[in-house]
């Protein structure tokens, strides 16, 4: 970890302007991802801008849905009754993530900006196109057991966002509110927030360098109320998903009226499955329907030596999750 200066921003503009003026600076909220990356010299910042005093807090219902301040902690949001009752997939994705200690520190905004757990990215001994563009991707022929099978490119197969929350947010059409150094806010649907690696895997989101995530808004829907997050992992806690599914269903008289489906652990970004959703709507809420949708969700998957298992695991996870919310 390099030496760095530290400032505590008291107003949003103090933070965003400082970031605009110093390209090597980083915002710090909980720091649970950032400090790890700095300790392993994957990220080097000469300045950290502490945003914890900024007024981006609160969990409240608005006309657009549930608005969660970006500085709320994972544990608080996961335990909030509104979240648990109206958006169970979101609550579950938060409480199944990380460890209690990390959840108490980590912010919602920071969670959305987690970086990949790809071992090649996180160890500077290796080449990595995401960390150092143009150096190559050893994961293609190496340790790719935990990496993506959808949305990959020849330059990068990392599950760029490795966490849980954004998978649920992606399924439920959450919208991020971003604010820049001019104080201007814009709304970005989370489905448009992450970028595919293509030839530029170092570019992971549409966030501009002077922008800060200030809130997440999740529309209230029947499908969100009947939603679930299912996570498959190597151990029972404190492990990233091998595969996860966030689903929501609105079922009337045994027929699916609305469906929300996203997968984690399989895509280079949280993977929204629009085709699978289309295949669900209007169909009977049966395992056969869910199986057909799961087949569509994994269509086009490109496995590597160690991650072919994800295709079947993801299908089964999806079928299981849909079956459980359908009852």
């Amino acid at each position, binding site marked *: 970890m390099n030496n760095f200066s530290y400032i505590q921003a008291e107003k949003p503009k103090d933070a965003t302007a400082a970031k605009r003026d110093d390209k090597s600076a980083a915002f710090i909220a909980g720091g649970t991802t950032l400090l790890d990356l700095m300790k392993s010299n994957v990220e080097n910042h000469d300045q950290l801008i502490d945003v914890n005093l900024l007024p981006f807090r609160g969990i409240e219902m608005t006309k657009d849905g549930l608005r969660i301040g970006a500085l709320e902690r994972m544990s608080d949001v996961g335990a909030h009754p509104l979240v648990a009752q109206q958006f169970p997939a979101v609550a579950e994705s938060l409480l199944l993530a990380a460890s209690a200690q990390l959840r108490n520190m980590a912010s919602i905004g920071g969670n959305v900006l987690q970086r990949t*757990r790809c071992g090649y990215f996180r160890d500077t*001994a290796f080449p990595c196109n995401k960390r150092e563009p143009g150096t190559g991707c050893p994961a293609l022929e190496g340790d790719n057991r935990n990496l993506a099978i959808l949305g990959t490119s020849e330059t990068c197969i990392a599950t760029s966002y490795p966490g849980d929350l954004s998978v649920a947010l992606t399924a439920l059409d959450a919208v991020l509110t971003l604010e820049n150094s001019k104080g201007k806010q814009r709304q970005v649907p989370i489905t448009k927030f992450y970028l595919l690696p293509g030839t530029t895997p170092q570019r992971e989101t549409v966030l501009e360098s002077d922008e800060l995530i200030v809130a997440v808004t999740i529309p209230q829907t029947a499908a969100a109320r009947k939603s679930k997050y299912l996570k498959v992992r*190597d151990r029972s806690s404190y492990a990233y998903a091998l595969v996860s599914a966030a689903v929501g269903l609105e079922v009337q008289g045994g027929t699916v009226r609305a469906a929300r489906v996203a997968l984690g652990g399989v895509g280079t970004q949280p993977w929204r499955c629009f085709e699978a959703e289309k295949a669900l709507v209007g169909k009977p809420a049966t395992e056969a329907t869910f199986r057909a949708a799961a087949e569509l969700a994994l269509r086009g998957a490109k496995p590597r030596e160690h991650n072919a*298992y994800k295709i079947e695991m993801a299908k089964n*996870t999806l079928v299981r999750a849909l079956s459980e919310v359908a009852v």
Partner: protein
Amino acid sequence: MDMTSNTSNQKENAPTNVVGKPLDRVDGPAKVTGAARYSAEINVPGTVYGVLKSSTIAKGRITGIDTSRAAKEPGIINIFTHENLPKPAKTPKQIEKWRAAQSYLPMQDNQIQYAGQPVALVVAATLEAATQAAALIKVTYQAETPIDSYHDPKAELFDPQKIQQGKKDAHVVRGNPQQAYDGAAVKHEATYVHAINHHSPMEPAATLAVWEGADKLTVYEASQNVTMHQGALADLLGMPREQIRVVTKYIGGGFGCKGSFWPHTILTVLAAKAVNRPVKLALTRPQMFTGVGHREDQEQTLKMGATADGKLVSIVHTKKATTSPWDNYTESNGKVMDMLYACENYSTVYELARANVMTSVWMRAPGEAPGSFALESSMDDLANQLNIDPMEIRLRNYADYDHSNGKPWSSKSLKQCYTRGAELFGWSKRNPKPGQTRRGRMLVGHGMASATYPVHSSQGTARVRLFADGHAVVEAGATDLGTGTYTVMTQVSADALGLPPEKIRFELGDTRLPTAPGSGGSVAAGTVASSIMAAAQDVWDKVVKMAVADKKSPLYKAKPTDVKVELGRMFLSKDPKKGETLLAALGRSGQPDIEGSGTGKYGAGYEEKNFGQNGADPNNDNKEKKTGGHSMHSFGAHFCEVEVDPDLGTIRVTRWVGVHGAGTVLNLKTATSQMTGGAIYGIGAALMEDTFRDPNFAHYTNADLAGYHIPVNADIPNIQVEFVPESDPYINYLGVKGIGELGMVGVAAAVGNAVFNATGRRLRSLPMTPDKMLEAMRMPA
């Protein structure tokens, strides 16, 4: 001490009072309050900090090291590379093999032989400055293509002739195994793969090197064996041992990785001398994966021949494994197959391949853990193949003596372990047909496996100082891994002197104390207990002499040989009422204290001393088997329930019962914890522990505790541990068998056997992760 004295020979186990009780850890308060200082927490005035920079390539040479930016960091004292680090008097290759597991010492030239190899050592006023400077050093390399493991197409398997630093043969044959296998009515053959495992103790390896003069050195080291570290340093530095002190008061787990001498220690010592300041260096967590050894990647092929009713007639075992460019280390997996069952024909052959990895090393139950995975999985298959209950097939092959050497057992309670374990677990309710038991969506399975671990012969010295005021200090240069040496030796001392444990202070972890074995191979408890007993006997002899010469003593004028001592009281053997306590006699003498010392033996050495060279065992009427003493082993049985999600591939252990026969239990609480820990360690190896070495870079991709999974609480069910009563007069005076390794042996097989019972699928590649389970579920059962 006088070896012919009245109390030195012991034909039966000594009586106990405090020994065996579930005493709370005597070091518990110091640990929970932070008063206990681990090696890297010790502060000496003037201490500066060392940080290693590790190689980013696995093979090649250094072409340049640019330290210009690093040297500008404030607080930098010196930056050492192969160009300016003072050379040791000898290299590890030139010293006694068993001490330095790895014969190669980095930073002696520009060669790179493994990824993570130290290439520079920065010394700075603060840890932060040293860390940052290490990152700023720019090393350029001429890289070559490395070999990553025995299964690399470029790797060449060879016959090492000897393994384990030359101590064991790479070929062992008993009987005529191939012929017996070929002619067997029932045959079974399978190949088992074990992942690379890393010890991953909580406390990292650490060294604080303090030169107290040009030729006087104190090293605070995270060491499982201070004597070993002292000896290795003396050899490497060309100094007398007497001038080197090694101190390890507390250890935060080791599992074997702190039981050998590794490069960081000598590099720190050399740097400390060069900067003329105490230097403290702790490995980072990633460096723990390339600094202190590992359990090697390996595969075993096991062929078993049996009669139609399940009696083994042949075991043919081969093992392939990766070793380093210089050393021929591999775990001796065959040992357990040679002795666990009654089988007249056995062979094992080891083949190794050199790769660009550091030398692997013993890791908890080395050999027995992976060996038992193969053996006990194949036994389960054989039972299933022949429609015999898995416990029944083990009973049919029960070894009434040790077939590997023909000796009778000193004690063996494996049958009792099976019976009691089965009863606690409810084994009789198990459905023998695989894939039949469901709990909701989950498939439920039950499996069992045997455990065993040898009593390794060992010896050590202790000192006892009994004060007339009723306190005592007992000292031995042993170590406490965190498993309870402080506590159990306090109990042993209390009974030897007849004092309550709170009046005893037991000191360990310092080469200034009498020489004792390290914590490894499950020898510490048995050996140090014997040493304390020998030292206590020295005190007894002296006090008995005082008493028989003291008119005020009830033992006045008695012959010392007629006096017996038990639990701190001296009395006439023929008239036990006539006697007094050691303290009473000492008190009248006017001496403030009395000191005794003694050397105690454990295992074969103890037996030879007390029972004669050829094991004059009155119970052994089998003349043919009288080949010099007894075979000494602890035994146990594991019972495991798993739930397998057939769609998602996840395996969860939901119930565990372990019953063990391990001689006298010194402390029921710490022993139960240790056996519980063994089961957890084994569940880790069974289900999740796996270090991935990249095939092209020969460099690990998950070298931290987020990427290298060890069990969390949620992975571990309630674990029920019991010990069956067992007395063993041949191993040491208390009948103590070590339990450090036993609890882990057979665990992975018990899990795999339960998975088979749940699903009808046999997973032979560890760890049994969800991807492998799911793949197996796709195949027909």
